[in-house]
Every structure is written in C-alpha cells, then in structure tokens.
C-alpha cells in the first residue's frame, strides 16, 4: 500500500502544488495527467525516492520512503522511463540478466524466456538495445521492471516517441502488470490513446496548483477541461 500524506513537491524549496494526500492499493493503475511543467515528473522522482517531498511523507507499507536504504527501495519500487533515456551497448538479454537489483542473483533463463514471450520480445532477445525500435526498447525496460518483481512500478512518459501500434502494445503490457496485482503509476501526455485503456483506476490530475485524485472513468473532455 502506497500512501501520500500531505506532500508538496518541487525544487529548491518551492512547491509546485498545494499539499496532496491519497493512497494506492495493490493492482491499481493510476495515471498522472497535467500540462507540461505541472510537476508530473517531479512527483514520479519523489515517489521513486530520488527527491524528497518539501513537506509531508510518502509511505510504503507504513514505512517512510525517505528512511529506506537504496537497496531496500529497489525491493519495493521499480521505474520505467522514456525509451530514449536508454543508450547502452548491452543486448536485450544482457539487460534482463541484470535482474532484480545489484545485490541479487540474475533471473533464471526460464524466468526471462517466460517474460519475453509475454511481451513478444523473443525475436530481439540477442539484439543490442541501440539497434531495436523505440517500442521494443520500451518493452525491454518494462520486462526488466517485471523481473525486478516490485510491488510498485513507476513510469515516466513511457509512451513518448512511440508510434501508435507500439503505444497499444505498451498499454497491453501495463495492463498485464496491473493484472498481476502490482500498483502501476504512469505519467503521460498521451491522453487520447490512454482513453482507450479500460483498466485505469484513478487519475491524479495536476490543475491550477493542486493535484486532484479522481476515480475512473473520466471522460477525455472532462480531463482536458481540468488540465486547462
């Protein structure tokens, strides 16, 4: 269970929004929606533990996130960023073999095979990630997050730079994660294709200096209106 208790986030002590409290349970899919610069990525950075909230606290299973060590955080939280953030000369398999974290053994071949089959990545398993498409690279990082086997998965603009079919595959992947009982929090601008996703539980909408927690379904027109 993820709990946000009266948090404000921002940089250099300047909050981007008024204090916000909410919670997210296992198996919930939450979309962060807002205009550019509203603070979606900053909130993701706070939820990942990379930044600390200016006020308030983020708790995971009643433990303050700020009190967890880097290794402890890696057991409960994983991240997926935009596909263009990954430029390495490792292959898809080599990335997946990195496994859950720096201190745990690599996943077995059986675990990797099962995961890549679900995400239709078998054909590119031995390709370098620099040589595959943005969509395939993004799915690789989702499978990597899956193998990290954490309760919460955070995604920052995962559909940026993807074409329409790749976006649909990405949303299917996100649905699979949710169905496994993981809490998935996605920051996205891609509201038109997101509206086709029937499994969203809540929207955290950044609007006029505050964040609103609105339960789905939420019509696209209403969402756009709130963001204005």
């Amino acid at each position, binding site marked *: 269970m993820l709990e946000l208790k009266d948090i404000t986030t921002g940089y250099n002590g300047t909050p981007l929004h008024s204090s916000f409290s909410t919670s997210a349970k296992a198996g919930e899919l939450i979309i962060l929606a807002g205009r550019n610069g509203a603070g979606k990525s900053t909130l993701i950075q706070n939820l*990942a533990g*990379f930044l600390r909230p200016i006020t308030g606290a983020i708790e995971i299973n009643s433990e303050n996130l700020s009190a967890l060590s*880097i*290794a402890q*955080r*890696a*057991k409960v*939280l*994983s*991240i997926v*960023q935009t596909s263009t*953030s*990954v*430029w*390495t*000369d*490792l*292959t898809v398999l*080599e*990335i997946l073999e*990195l496994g*859950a*974290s*720096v*201190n745990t053994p690599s996943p077995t071949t059986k675990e990797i095979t099962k995961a890549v089959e679900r995400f239709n990545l078998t054909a590119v398993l031995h390709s*370098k990630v*620099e040589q595959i498409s943005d969509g395939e690279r993004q799915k690789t*990082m989702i499978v990597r997050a899956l193998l*990290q086997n954490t309760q919460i998965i955070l995604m920052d603009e995962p559909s940026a730079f993807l074409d329409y079919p790749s976006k649909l595959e990405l949303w299917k992947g996100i649905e699979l994660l949710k169905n496994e009982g993981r809490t998935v929090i996605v920051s996205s601008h891609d509201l038109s294709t997101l509206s086709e996703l029937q499994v969203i539980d809540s929207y955290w909408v950044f609007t006029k200096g505050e964040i609103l927690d609105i339960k789905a379904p939420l019509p696209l027109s209403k969402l756009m209106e709130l963001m204005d």
Partner: protein
Amino acid sequence: MSELFLGSVFIEMQDVLASLWGSNTNPIHDVIIRESRIPRAFTAMFAGGGLAMCGMLMQRFFHNPLAGPSVLGITSGASFGVALVVLITGGAVSTQFGIPFAAFSGAMGVLLLILLASTRIKSAVTLLILGLMVGYMVSAGVTVLQAGANKDALRSFVFWGMGTFSDLQSSEVLILGSIFFISILLIAFNTRRLDLFSLGNDYALSMGLDVKRFRFLLLIVTGVLTGIITAYCGPIAFIGLAVPHLARGIWQSGKHKVILPAVVLTGMITGLVCDLLIRIPIGTSSLPLNAITSLIGAPVVIYILMKGRKVF
C-alpha cells in the same frame, strides 16, 4: 618479444631468452635487457592498459564516446605540477624523483578539486564541463610559466610533454604495476555495477546501486591511475580515448565482464606497439611517443565519428 630484442642495440632472440632465464653470458646485453628493455616493456603495458581502462570508465561515467582520462583535467594538473617545478627551478630539478613527484602532486590536486565538486554536482555533463574548464585554467597557468622560463627549463618541460615509456627504474615499474593491478581488481569486482550504471543514473539507482558512491569510486580509480601514469610517462594522448572503441569493435560486446579485459589487453598491446614504433630512427633521433599515439588514435576517433554510433 620484439620489444626485448629490437632497439638501438639489436639483441639476438637466444640472448634475450638467456637473459630471461638468468644465463646470459654477455653482460652488456644482460644489463640492457634486465635494466632497460624489460622495465620499458612493462611500463608500456601498464600505461597502455591503464589509460585504456581509464578511458573506458570516463566514457561510461559521462555517457560520452569522446571522453578520455584527460577530460577531468588530471593530465593538465600533472603538466602544471611539472611546469611549476621544472620552469621555476630552471630545469635544475631531478628528473628521476622530482618530475614524477611534481606531476603526481599536480594530478592529485586537480582530482581532489573534482572529487569535492562531485559531492555537490549531480549532473555528469556539468562535471565534464568543470573538468574541461579546470584543464583550460591549469593549461593557461602552464603557458604563463613557459613565457617566463629559460631555454633549458623549456626544453626539459617540452621533452617531458612528448611522453616516454623508457625512463623508469625497476622499483618505479613496481609502483606503477601495483597501482595498475589494484585499480583493475577494483573495477573487475564491479563489472555488474558498470553494466547497471550504463543504463543511466535513475535506472541504476532504482535497481539498488548507490550511484553517488559508485561515481566516486570511478573518479578515484581514474584519477590515481591516470595521475601515476602521467607522472612517470608524461601526458600520453589518445590511448585512453581510442582503445576502448577499438576493443568494443573487435569484441562486439557491451558487457563489462567481457569488455574490461578486452580493453585492458588491447591497451597493453597498443602501448607495446607504440613503443616499438617510436624506435624507428628519424635522422639522429626517433619519433616522440605522443606523435605515435595521436597518429594511431586520431583515425580511430574519425572512424567512430564517421560511423555515427548511437551508443552513449
């Protein structure tokens, strides 16, 4: 082996082998091999392998294919240390101890500055620019010192700047070799962490890597190893920048468990090849080491640019 029998004095292969087994009956050849050519060959291997590894670490650290050991300003720091001692004393300083000590002190001074900055600066790009700026400032200091120096001092400084593998005594090769092996061991125990680090800071951090501490380790290993190599051999250009790309091209792997030994081995071979090439006589002298490393290194960098690799 060519490294041992080629030189201004040609020594037969059987003589070389006899010296290696301790049974050479020609005392002059025995001294040349034991006290000159063997230390020189080891120096070339340690310096080549060490600079190549430092280049690989800096390219990974900055996610930039054109980074090398010199980007932190360490080499410029060493040059400044040498310039300060050589040019102010008018070239009267001992080349055996004074120059390496001055170079290492200068390199460590800059490393300390970079380490202090790295505790406050998160962005690798900002640190890269800082390193370059420190390098420029220190180089400007060297130019000022050169302007006021006498001819002998200038000559001594320019000679150091050409680089060499040949001036080390066995005890100094031992110091260089010890730091080389300790550095490689430290990195060899961290190849999986380097793989993780290659995914970017946020992914590495989210997978349990203490990125701040790891970056500190990379800076210290690169700084100390580059510092000691520059202190003993002078500021050697291009090996650190070009060899990692050469090794990646040959071994076709991004996994550090594979690429670390490949880079070190390629660096050692490159060091030996460069040292062989500088023995080609040009009139009464021979080619400076830095001219050879640049002649070999520059085409590799041009090839990388032309190929337009998207990695990093």
